[in-house]
């Protein structure tokens, strides 16, 4: 073989390395540089000084604090709820035979739909207009409640629709992973338990749950990460001006700082993105520590 052949592998890697270098490695370094440059001007590409001012600006910005509050609320509400309901549904799905495929297909549909598009449907269902109170409000009337504008009304109502929509969107992935985890639990364990006359609840608690705990734990971690990066679903429901709707998220704040009417501040955007990354890292580490106690790897 010729000596040039030794490096041929690099040639195959070259496109991937070029793209990753330009659009992942370099930006990763650059984001920290940006975050330290104070008073950076995008047009002239100049800055006054270096330091931590950008972080302090972001942390004192009421819009950012609002975004942090919104994001944490969404995380705290949607992650446990969606994981819990997904577990219930998956267990129910695994216990039936006829129609199971049909249900699985239906449950998976939200995964392949455009969140911006379907968000509009949620919006018209919940929105109160001059012409109509919207379907959901009519249901509330039916039960004797007062009508609420869920899209431009009080904060809890908006948060409710937001969380409902997030759950609708994230459910397919969770149900899919949990049903395949449940299907892979070895039948022998169940049969052995049945011979001993173990109750259904006890079987679930003592066999099923430990056996699927790795998947469950994986879903909790990815769920936390995904919910912290919530953005498109909020735009779908409340439009692009999320600050005015009081429904901005941390990622939304980053993009608003970068671009749009309030944009042109990549330094603030970088600082906010780094803060987000640190929050996500911390939460993931805490999750990992907790899981050591409770997850059973076979």
């Amino acid at each position, binding site marked *: 073989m010729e000596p040039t052949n030794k490096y041929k592998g690099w040639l195959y890697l070259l496109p991937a390395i070029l793209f990753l270098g330009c659009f992942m490695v370099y930006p990763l370094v650059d*984001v920290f540089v940006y975050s330290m440059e104070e008073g950076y001007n995008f047009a002239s590409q100049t800055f006054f000084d270096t330091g931590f001012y950008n972080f302090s600006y972001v942390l004192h910005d009421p819009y950012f604090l609002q975004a942090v509050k919104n994001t944490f609320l969404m995380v705290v509400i949607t992650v446990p709820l969606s994981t819990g309901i997904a577990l219930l549904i998956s267990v129910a799905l695994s216990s039936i035979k006829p129609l199971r495929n049909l249900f699985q297909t239906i*449950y998976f549909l939200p995964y392949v739909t*455009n969140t911006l598009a379907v968000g*509009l449907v949620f919006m018209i269902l919940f929105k109160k207009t001059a012409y109509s109170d919207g379907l959901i409000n009519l249901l509330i009337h039916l039960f004797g409640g007062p009508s609420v504008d869920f899209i431009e009304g009080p904060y809890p109502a908006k948060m409710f629709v937001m969380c409902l929509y997030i759950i609708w969107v994230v459910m397919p992935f969770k149900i899919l992973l949990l049903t395949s985890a449940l299907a892979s639990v070895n039948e022998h364990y169940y049969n052995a338990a049945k011979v001993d006359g173990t109750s259904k609840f006890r079987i679930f608690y003592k066999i099923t749950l430990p056996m699927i705990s790795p998947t469950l734990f994986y879903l909790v971690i990815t769920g936390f990460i*995904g919910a912290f990066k919530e953005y498109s679903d909020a735009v779908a429901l409340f439009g692009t001006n999320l600050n005015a709707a009081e429904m901005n998220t941390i990622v939304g704040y980053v993009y608003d700082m970068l671009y749009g009417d309030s944009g042109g501040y*990549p330094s603030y955007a970088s600082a906010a993105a780094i803060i987000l990354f640190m929050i996500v890292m911390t939460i993931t580490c805490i999750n990992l520590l907790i899981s050591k106690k409770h997850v059973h790897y076979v």
Partner: protein
Amino acid sequence: MDYEKIKKSAALKQKIFSGVIYFFLAIWGLFVLFPFYWMILTSVKSYSAYNSEYIPKFFTLSPTMQNYIDAFTTVHLGRYLWNTLVFTVITTGLMMLVITLAAFAFARLEFPGKNLVFTLFLALMMIPNELVIITNFATITNLNLRNTFAGLILPSVTSVFYIYLLKENFAQVPDALYYAAKVDGTSDMKYLFKVMIPICKPTLVTVGILKVIECWNSYVWPRLITDDEAYYLVSNGIQEIRENGFGRENIPAMMAAVVVISLPLIVLFLLFRDKIMEGVSRGGTKG
């Protein structure tokens, strides 16, 4: 006698139990399907009928196609769809090429520094998109690539995760095939295209479909990089339609646009259901 009774009551209990389960599953199914039903229903109601219904009707007796015509004529839905199609096809095609070459290098070729690079690649999987998008935006802006397809496509043609997925699959192809091909004097490139790719076609197709879904639904990057309507993809298009399109009140036409945008992926899903679900459970990240 008694035994029969116990058996009967146990069977009854079982029946009630499975009834409850089916009821519960059906409720969730309704919750998932209802938005789809509502968007199709609204899209075939005429504008005047929709606005005169203070209490929305759950069905319509006089469906109309007018909204679909409006969606294609009064706003640029056709252009958004075409842009998205071009973006999706080129991005997916380029990505498949880049990741196949990279995965082949990792799975089959020996070269100095291979393990080090592979470890670095894996480390990149942990980098969240939000952290790098700021500089990418600056890069594309400084290169004057805003409002071009190149600007839209370039940052999303590599995926470390798919390289990893493909490398695992390539590595399962028996070594003997490679040596046999080498004895016959086949070049590496020819081996990749004539042997490796045909064998690993199922995984390649799965990765391709997942990328198509991702491209079709991408919103954040296109929004940052395009402000010229001529380059909008469907996600930005629908946002544009919502904010400036038909006038905020023409909801039926808006819903027609939503149906048109959602339909391609739903058809794709129904055609490749098993592939998509298997692929997502191996490599999906949404949620």
